[in-house]
């Protein structure tokens, strides 16, 4: 049986507690890594069990976390200096692990990028994009909101194509998604690249085992399609 993916979240503030709460519902193991007593007490009071209190500037303490390549490292410390420093430490200690960091300015984003963060969520960048979309693409904004909401009846779904899947070896254009009432947005065609390709990019893709496809649809249709793809 495959190991559960793990996420290490560094920092626990009023804002990031939302992420921690949502992550605890997901199929992954969440470890909170905190340095202050106050954050530790709060996390404990909120019901988290796997909490480690360490000095995040101490590399030896970080090493003891035993982070693996497939894990996620989430840097959401409120102090941006510490957040950048932590990102740099984590990147030097675990260079192949994905680091996701939160930024509150363009300048911090640049620094986090240089420090080795793989994905940076810039608070103001995403908000500015949203402001723009509210004005120019109101329908799109509503749709994306619904897609991101865990309570909606339709959503995005990532599906990994396993070996022996009925769609293994099928060209994307030949497959009738209408039958499953889902829309394929794009995929990672590992035969070509490890990057995400939109279905509208004009590239002729083929479904192979190991590829990941992203679809939108009503939850039950997505489930039906996933069962079909995974041959369940």
């Amino acid at each position, binding site marked *: 049986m495959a190991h559960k993916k793990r996420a290490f979240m560094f920092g626990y503030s009023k804002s990031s507690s939302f992420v921690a709460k949502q992550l605890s519902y997901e199929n992954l193991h969440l470890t909170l890594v905190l340095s202050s007593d106050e954050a530790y007490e709060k996390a404990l009071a909120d019901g988290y069990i796997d909490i480690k209190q360490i000095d995040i500037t101490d590399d030896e303490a970080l090493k003891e976390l035993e982070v693996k390549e497939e894990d996620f490292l*989430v840097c959401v410390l409120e102090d941006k200096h510490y957040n950048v420093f932590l990102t740099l430490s984590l990147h030097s200690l675990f260079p192949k692990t994905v680091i996701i960091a939160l930024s509150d300015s363009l300048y911090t984003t640049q620094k986090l990028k240089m420090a080795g963060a793989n994905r940076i969520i810039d608070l*103001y960048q995403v908000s*500015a994009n949203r402001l*723009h*979309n*509210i004005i120019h693409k109101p329908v*799109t904004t509503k749709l994306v909101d619904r897609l*991101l909401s865990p309570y909606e009846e339709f959503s995005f779904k*990532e599906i990994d194509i396993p070996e022996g899947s009925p769609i293994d070896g099928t060209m994307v254009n030949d497959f009738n998604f209408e039958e499953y009432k889902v829309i394929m947005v794009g995929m990672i065609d590992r035969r070509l690249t490890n990057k995400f390709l939109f279905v509208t990019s004009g590239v002729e893709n083929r479904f192979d085992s190991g590829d990941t496809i*992203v679809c939108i649809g009503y939850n039950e249709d997505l489930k039906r399609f996933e069962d079909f793809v995974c041959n369940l």
Partner: protein
Amino acid sequence: MIKKFILRFAFFLHTSKRYKRFKAIVENFLLNPDYKYKKYFDIFMISLIVLSVAILIYEVEHTMPPWVDFVDIYIVTFVFTIEYVARVWVHNSWSKEVVKAHGEAKFLKKKFSLWEASRGVFKSKFFYLLTPAALIDLLAILPAYRPLRVLRIFVLFRVFKLLRYTKSINQFVEVLATKKFELFTLLFLILFIVFTSGIAIYVFEEKSNPDINSLFDGLYWALITISTVGYGDISPITMEGRIVSMLVIISGIAMISFVTSVIVSSFSEKLDELKENRLVEEINKTGKFMIFCGYGQMTRVFLRNYSKELGSNYIIIDKKRDKVEEAFKEGYQAIHEDASRHDVISKFNIEYSDITLFALTGSDVSNVYIILNAKSLSKNIKVITRASDESIANKCKLAGADHVVRPNIIANKMLLTAITQPVMYQAIYAILTGRHLAQLDEVMLVEHQKLVSLKLEEVNFKHYKLLFIGIQRGLKGDFVFNPDKRRVLNEKDILLLMGREASINHFKNSFQGVDYGT
């Protein structure tokens, strides 16, 4: 009987839409700086003024052909007369006051007096006629009366009319008006020195200096000397006269420096305000623009991403001077004002413009106040704000905000997606930023009439390399994800499509033609 007739006439004017529309147009041409055709009227009037002054100068040494005189007398003067009368007419509304007074009299069951009702209006018009601007207008008409050649000099009053039509001269006068006290004090001081020194030189030199024969010569000499012009046609010859002369020269230099410093300081104080007013006027002319209240991180990032798309149809308002300077340095249009003030937002052409206001200051309290301020001025202003938490977001909505953005929530959702569904994160990130090879775009069927009445299955989206996601009925309708392909497209439907920018544009262009992509 006559009274009844006049009253009926007043009611007729008051209720006549055509009359009101016509008066509004005239008012816009004469008085509304935001009216888009006013500048053409101003240019026309300036041209007439320049033409008539040019004729006056040319006439000094040349004989004018009769048609030039005709143009000057009949056309130019006719236009000026019409303008003069029109200004008196739009100054206030007689019919409105009469109807109002009649209504009040009826309500209070008292006797209606037509004269009483009209008196205030005529009095106000009379006082208008005595204003400097109206007097200049009147004097500018007089040169047309040819039997009195001396009246030709009144053509120069037409130059004063330029004050009405050129903003810079107007602003110069306005700036000087702010230093009225200082300038008047100086004027009195100069007059005092001119008089005392003029009298002194007259007393000391009247008998010995052949150039000084009267008190007027003394005053003339004093003025020429104090102004540091010094023609030299009159110069003192006695010791006493020379001492007076030295004192006048010294005080003259002091006066000139003082006047210069007063004018320069008033300009430097007002320069920013003048620039900002000009900026607001320019923005108002666009008819559709955005107002960013607060130049913080979010405004900065927004403009960094989208300022090219916006062109010059936006303005930043910040009450902190250093923030405004920062915005200027980065090449953005900004004014130093407090957006929560009623008079600041009122400067914008709220009634006729399509305004989107972003309340993005760092303070939730200020944002709520800005929302209330904007919405109290007009419900049509679209207000988008940011809020730090849910309770503030609710307050903003209660205050009337059309959209509330919560940066933490959006960022957290993205963060969560990046961890739990990393591939999907890439897709959503690309969609939200409109980058890479995919954009989500909306096509409203009003503009693309050829799609109306077609079934979805009749439109070959694949041909355009587009992905059809869903449809929404109008801006406020429900979004239908992946609808039945037999659905017929209607006017005002919004199609949500995904694809490259080129594909979307190709699709839009095609449906202005006949290609259905089948």
